């Protein structure tokens, strides 16, 4: 029963995702990591699955390696098992919570939990556990209901402790070395704001 329900929800989501063959958009990239400081960067982005997203910018940009799989290609590429977990509220929206477990070792994803808007079949949140890159969380906001293309996407990820090469730091720079050593993995966020979508159907 739970599996049937999950399959039904996933089928609707995949149908929505499948409407879009590719897209281009302008994107503002905002990095929120406590030991990296950079201003918001702007780029043009193009996405044509199964190819990875491409960014074009005159600026130097930093792009996360995970979380930019807009069509969930990695998740649905191989056979999977699904489970309907229940209902929850995400951003005041009632969502289906579905777990997906890819069954093949080749899959980069070990487990994914999707939070799917019950009204629009858009994925508002995804929690992805990967085989080799830890866990990351994607929160998406939409300003349209037709496609699963977000207006804002927040990717939250774990980062290994950043080893600052202290001897290259400035002469008068005060750094709390003890604190730095005691800190474990850190959480970072990348906020992507999309505009001017050009959708290819």
């Amino acid at each position, binding site marked *: 029963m739970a599996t049937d329900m999950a399959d039904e929800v996933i089928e609707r989501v995949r149908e929505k995702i499948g409407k879009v063959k590719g897209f281009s958009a302008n994107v503002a990239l905002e990095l929120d990591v*406590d030991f990296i*400081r950079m*201003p918001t960067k702007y780029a043009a982005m193009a996405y044509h699955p199964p190819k990875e997203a491409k960014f074009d910018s005159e600026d*130097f940009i*930093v792009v996360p390696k995970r979380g930019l799989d807009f069509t969930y290609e990695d998740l649905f590429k191989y056979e999977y098992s699904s489970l309907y977990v229940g209902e929850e509220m995400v951003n005041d929206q009632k969502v289906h919570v579905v777990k997906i477990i890819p069954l093949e070792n080749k899959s980069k994803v070990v487990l994914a939990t999707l939070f799917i808007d019950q009204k629009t079949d858009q994925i508002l949140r995804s929690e992805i556990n990967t085989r080799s890159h830890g866990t990351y969380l994607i929160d998406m906001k939409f300003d349209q209901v037709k496609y699963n293309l977000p207006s804002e996407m927040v990717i939250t*990820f774990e*980062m290994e402790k950043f080893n600052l090469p202290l001897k*290259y730091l*400035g002469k*008068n720079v005060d750094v709390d070395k003890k604190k730095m050593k005691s800190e474990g993995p850190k959480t970072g966020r990348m906020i992507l704001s999309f505009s001017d979508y050009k959708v290819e159907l």
Partner: protein
Amino acid sequence: MFKLKRRPLGYLALGAIIIIDLVVFVAAALEGQLFLDFFTENLQETFFFQGNLLNGSLVSYLILNSLWFHIPLIVVVVACALVGGEGNDGSLQTILTRKASRGAYVLSKYLLVTLVSLVLVLLLAATSLGLSYGFFGRGDLLVLMETLNIIPFEDALMRLIGAFAFGMLAMITVGLMAATISLFFDSPVNAILVSIFSMILLTIIGKGMPASVGWAKLLFVYHLSGWQNFFPFEVAWSELVESLLVLLIHCMVFILVGVWYFRRKDLV
């Protein structure tokens, strides 16, 4: 000025600046990418970096680091040679028997040292900014200063110019210190040694003092690297102003001490 033109020392100093530039350029071209990879190794597990970080902004920043050590040495040598040389061969007595007063004479020396220090840093700035952007292109500046800061090109350029401007005052302070010390010695070589020893000693004393005590911040050597305050993500204006004030006060003190001493100095 006429004397400076005739002496090879000024040209040697200018040549040294250009050599410093070239060495950094070659090192950046050969090792720059390895240097950047070393800095960003951890981050590349999580992010793709797109764009050129080995650019003129970074190379200019690396050259700025020579203001810490190499340029003060050149300034000390030039200042001591300009001020100390005349006591050695008796030409000082000849000059002072003419119309110049002792005060005017020593002030003219300080002015000359100031101009030479200015020209040295200007040359460093012009060659490093001009050649760096010419060879390595424009781009954002990656600086490790408390955090890993990525500063956009336009902002980075203004900060680099500000840092070189700050460096001018810092090197003028060093030059005036060396000039003042030179007044106490007949031999420029002794003056150079004492000047360098003083800077090393003050640096050690400054480092040995906990910053919270505050004494270190009264030493001018502590503020020679104050240009770094341009490179946190938000420019540390209060620290910059503090450094500028300390350096300006030291400049005035060096000049006052020099004039006071030289007026009373037994030149016979």
